[in-house]
């Protein structure tokens, strides 16, 4: 059993938000999510792929995403994650929290000098 978890590279909870948001476009496998995140952030956010899978499994356990094995266009078996109804609600919650947080951080930082 591992007691020492690696510190996430992103702010706590942010990765969950990003994954949920990515899945809003439709079911996707782990690698696809990673690629999509990188692309949609204009390569700014380079997600450590190693931290992607614990996060996905955690979201699955919480019932926010659901996973099914499907065959890709390249005829390979892959585990596709899709958003559940609970996940959609959670996304809304996380989104609000993030807006508040970023707004707060922006306020603290003040206008750019």
């Amino acid at each position, binding site marked *: 059993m591992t007691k020492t978890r690696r510190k996430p590279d992103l702010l706590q909870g942010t990765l969950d938000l990003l994954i949920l948001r990515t899945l809003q476009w439709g079911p996707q496998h*782990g*690698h696809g999510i990673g*690629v999509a995140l990188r692309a949609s952030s204009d390569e700014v956010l380079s997600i450590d792929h190693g931290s992607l899978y614990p996060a996905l499994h955690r979201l699955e356990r919480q*019932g926010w995403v659901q996973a099914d094995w499907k065959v890709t266009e390249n005829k390979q078996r892959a585990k596709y994650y899709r958003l559940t109804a609970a996940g959609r609600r959670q996304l809304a919650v996380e989104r609000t929290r993030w807006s508040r947080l970023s707004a707060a951080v922006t306020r603290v930082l003040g206008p750019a000098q």
Partner: protein
Amino acid sequence: MLRARIRALFRLVFFPARADRELDDELRFHVTEEARTYVERGKSEADAMAAARRALGNVARVKEETRGVWVSTRLEQFMQDLRFGVRILTKSPAVSVTAIVLIALVIGGNTTVFSIAHGILRKPTPGIRADDLTTVSWVTADGGPQTANSYRAYLYFLEHSATLRPLAATDFQRLTLTQDNGSFAVRATLVSPNYFETLRAHLVKGRALNEDDARRDSSGVVVIGYHLWQNTFHGAEDVIGKSVRLNGQPAIVVGVAEPHFRGAWLAELADVWVPLAPEPTALQSSHPSDAVVMIGRRTPGTSLAEAQAELTALWTQLQRADPAMSQKLKVRLVAYSATAGGDSAVAAYGDRMLAIFSIVTLLTIAIVCANVANLLIARAVVRQRELALRQSLGASRFRVVRGLLAEGLVLSAVAWCAACLFAWWISRVVIRFISTPSREPLSLPDLTPDWTVVGYALALALLCTFAVTLGPALYTRRQQLLPFLKLGEQGVVPGRSKVSRALVVLQLAFSVLLLTSAGLAYRSASYTDGFNLGFDTGKLLLATVNTAGSAHDAAGDDLLLETLRARLQRLPGVEGISYVRGIRPSSWVTFPVRTERSPEPVLAAQNIVGAGYFDAARVAFSAGHDFDALNTAGRRTVIITKDLADALWPNEMAVGKIVSAGDPAHPLRAEVVGVVGNAYFGGRGAATHPRYIFFSNHEQPRPPAETTFLVRHGASEEAVARAVAKALREADPRVAIASLRSFDDQLAGEIAPLWMLTTLLMFFAGGSVLIAAIGQYAVVAFEGRRRTREFGLRIALGATPEQLIAAVLGEGFRWTAAGLALGFALSIAVASLLTRALFGVTPTDPLTYVTVFALLSGASLAACYLPARRAARTDPVIALRTE
């Protein structure tokens, strides 16, 4: 969300390998997919794969972190522990199966005893709502229990008690029920009018008894049992209002009880219920004010202690107000059970038997736990290296102990399931076992294990878990890590477990104790069984009749008995016939007998017999003659056995002398007219001397009641029994036959409980010997394995196989000797307690002890021999190469 968790847990518990495999697949897919993107960007395939792996990071760590997500809750950790426990157990299946079988057997045996005790002592009889029912019992001055007290006490309680409402009074009696198609002996319960209401027993037809029924002037009424309605009245719809006779008195059937209801007590087994009248009636031979058993229902919210306090106060008031009340009795309330009350053998001896078995089962539990603990310690020793490795990698000691606990829990859980099945099965066997030998009607308790029993088994299983885990856990806690890490895969740190050996010695000692107890019980039972009564019991039929339905007074009864005797005498195949008062030949009254010269009494069993009794029993007269049939009343005569004659008048002729019998204040003086050979007329019991004194029924007739005819015959038992029954019915249809059985059956029925006890004891003792032998085998085998190298070395240095076998056996037998010595010491200490229970053998019976010694030594030698042989076959090359 909860559903997702449950699904995940389910998957983790039942398909752990699949979850791992899927994670592998998922990560592999990730890597190939990532590599594909690199290839598209122009990298070579091999480079792309390497780069993709690098991008993912440490795969093992990713997997570990992901798995960490799976098991986040305590429950899941526990399940993981359990899974681990299962894995460990399936890794060494022989040890596990042995442990499971041992625990299952001991929990099963224990649970069976508990379920029997529970069934007999706690469950109500069928048809009764037991909650809040309370039995009013009494304690005599010397602390003994008494079930009944006077009717006036009942009336006083009925009037004044606020806590026991309603309160019913009952009394028991055998009656003769006469109907159109003949007479039957029935078991009657005389009850107060509120009886059915108190027990909440229902009627299927008619009404319960009421206040009017209890008045003396109203005509007799009776509520009949369902089986009586079905069998005797053939389930007639118009049974209510039908007129019958009970002991010759008219009575009208007013109700039919529900199918399984036979009264509140197991021993009661009532066929009919009649009103308990406050005054003596023709139906009540004993004065009703003498003895009634009271049972009441506590008003809602009243505790047993509150009711007890109230009744104690009421009883004290009554004792003060009424000096006729017994001043020495104390009232004691007990929660109702089917055996608390009545005068059944179960009520009398049940507690003692159960106490014996509680001790026995506790001993077996101790033995088995010691054994399984030993097995697990042995394995813990083998696993020392593994455990040390786990600890050095950072597992806390608590975590390791938790693993062991989970292992024990898995063991016990499997054993528990097996034990419940075992107990359920055995309780059905026991029922059949009890119900066969006895001819007496017997109401069987409900022994099927219920939830209480299953729960009891569960508690035992948990206890076993802790007991068997404790040893290995302590062992682990103490251990140093370093020596084990330094050893190779097969290495074991030298040094012997003192705990294991102590446990083996203890097991053997307990086995000796159990075996000697079983052996003594067996010897006692077979002694009693083969006991020579002094007369021929074969071809002797016992026919118990009740004459109360026909004769009305003592003289009439004597006349009737003589008529019946003459009638039976003429039957073909009958060689001798007489009768004796009472139901059974063995429940005779013992009372003091004196000579005219000496005030020193000799105790003798007395009974009243008809003419020709000794002829029928085939006991010869050594002096004098039988009772004179023409003897006019006034001159009292007795016949005594030779042993009694010798005790009263050593070296003198007894015939013609006068005995003074009974209470010295009002002695019964009678002349000895005959001396018969020594015989145990009352059956075997605890009698040490065949001392009997007989009075003539003709000289001292008694009111009509039950009498047993002794029919000596030369034909087949069945034919004679049929002929006797037919002749009795023809002679007087109002005479009810209470029972008809051979003398040998009667004796077998009386000894049955002793055999049952013996069989159960032997069962437990045999099991414990087996368990002890297995335990010793395990320990010796394990030691042998640890010393493989030593054996190899010895063989290499020239030791013969015989020498090695002798060495191992000798060492093993040293513990056996210690165990036997301890066990015999224990047995001798316990034996003094057995003295009272055993008949015919001294508690230090040499044969028993020699047998036990031989048996256990043999078992122990066998247990040591197998490992010894293996040691002797050690291949020195292989053994030494493990270095």
